[in-house]
């Protein structure tokens, strides 16, 4: 069960209020008519699907019904931050890699997986919140 911070309601709510909607920040081609079939297919179907940091779109379906973004780790499931539409993530795979070297990761409280999360995942979230 995820405990997710909705950046519009500004509260932590349970996972069942939300629906995941896949990869975030996919730009619609500016001129779809000018796209080749390959470009249009890439836009519609091809995804990063990373094992690690993933920026994804969620909707607060039975709450404020607004879309927002989550940065989440796809192996530990730790939620690293949530942010509004139109905003850019402050935590990325690159920033985390360089931050870890400096040993000073500071992540916002985006929420966490409360049940079923591994100890390591909980620890990493707690670490991020500290």
């Amino acid at each position, binding site marked *: 069960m995820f405990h997710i911070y909705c950046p519009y309601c500004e509260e932590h709510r349970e996972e069942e209020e939300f629906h995941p909607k896949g990869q975030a920040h996919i730009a619609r081609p500016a001129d779809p008519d000018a796209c080749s079939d390959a470009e249009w297919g890439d836009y519609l179907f091809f*995804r990063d*699907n990373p094992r690690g940091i993933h920026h994804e779109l969620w909707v607060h379906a039975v709450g404020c019904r607004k879309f927002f973004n989550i940065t989440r780790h796809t192996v530990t499931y730790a939620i690293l931050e949530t942010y509004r539409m139109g905003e850019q993530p402050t935590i990325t795979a690159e920033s985390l890699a360089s931050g870890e070297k400096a040993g000073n990761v500071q992540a916002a409280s985006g929420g966490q*997986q409360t049940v079923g999360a591994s100890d390591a995942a909980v620890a990493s979230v707690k670490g991020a919140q500290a």
Partner: protein
Amino acid sequence: MQRYSGFGLVKHALSHHENWQRQWRNPTPKKEYDVIIVGGGGHGLATAYYLAKEHGITNVAVIEKGWLGGGNTARNTTIVRSNYLWDESAALYEHAMKLWEGLSQDINYNVMFSQRGVLNLGHTLQDMRDIQRRVNANRLNGIDSEVLDARGVQELVPIMDCSKNARYPVMGASWQPRAGVARHDAVAWGYARGADSLGVDLLQNTEVTGFKILDGRVVGVHTNRGDIGAKTVGCVTAGNSGVMAKMAGFQLPLESHPLQALVSEPLKPILDTVVMSNHVHGYISQSDKGDLVIGAGIDGYNGYGQRGSYPTVEHTLQAIVEMFPMFSRVRMNRQWGGIVDTCPDACPILSRTPVKGLYFNCGWGTGGFKATPGSGHVFAWSLAKGQMHKLAAPFSIDRFRTGALIDEHGAAGVAH
């Protein structure tokens, strides 16, 4: 290889079963192979077996980062059926079904294939229309399939609530009598033993960390046990296929999701068929040792963690109890998640890739187990001939750019 037989069982009983041969070797990797299969699950092992048996290509390695059949082969709900809507997928899954029917004899390994039939329930008028359409399509493709009304369903499964008082009354079902279940682990082990006896090297605890690519052509793989050369590489890595594709420098139209399943405490025989409901959203069968084997939809978020969220488990069990009120007090024993690589059109990818000599067999999503023999059979043919088998050709990656999708969302056991 020692052949398994009833006589062998008696003979080994005389020596207290202490002299059984190991099922496969634990070989040291060679410098180079003709074909490398990445991924030692059911599909990968089947590919290696058919490469050796049908095409005489025995200089083959299966490279597995963990142990054989430890991924989705060990985590699925073991259902086998072929009642798919479109000609392309019906042909592929029916090809698998025909191989299932002779599989135990072929690989001399009891895969406990039990053709106990599969019911796909309908609860609305639209469900019933879709079922009729799918059953008609199945019959045109030579696949056994029938439409049952609620009374017919009740006769087959007396313990199910088919009354009008149910919240979503059962209106009927499609029924495939030749469908059923198989022992999932035995499929991996049987193919592994068969492949090994034909000379295939099964390299466990060996993780592929990259592909060696020279002038756009794959020439081998990097592993944690050193580099291994290969003329052809087949990548059969299910949930991790997106990661493997990235190593090779391209993207796939896949998203990896957790798909959960659970088993109950063992019960006396109570359910002798497989019941799936797309609308109420769950499926159930009873294993030979008595556990109820239960599954439903994926967790909607991307994940590689081999676990999901409890709300999904709760929804799954709500569906089961809706269909079988008598199971409301059955206790669940174990619950787990596997990582499924889902495609936008709910069909697999069997395809060449932008890298010459590198082939992918992935995207089976939530329903790959049933296709294991067919997938391995046509993929082996494709690797051996260097061109895609005619049953595999429609499942090219290119379909996501040409638009020739094969939309099988409707024939999935439950919506995902």
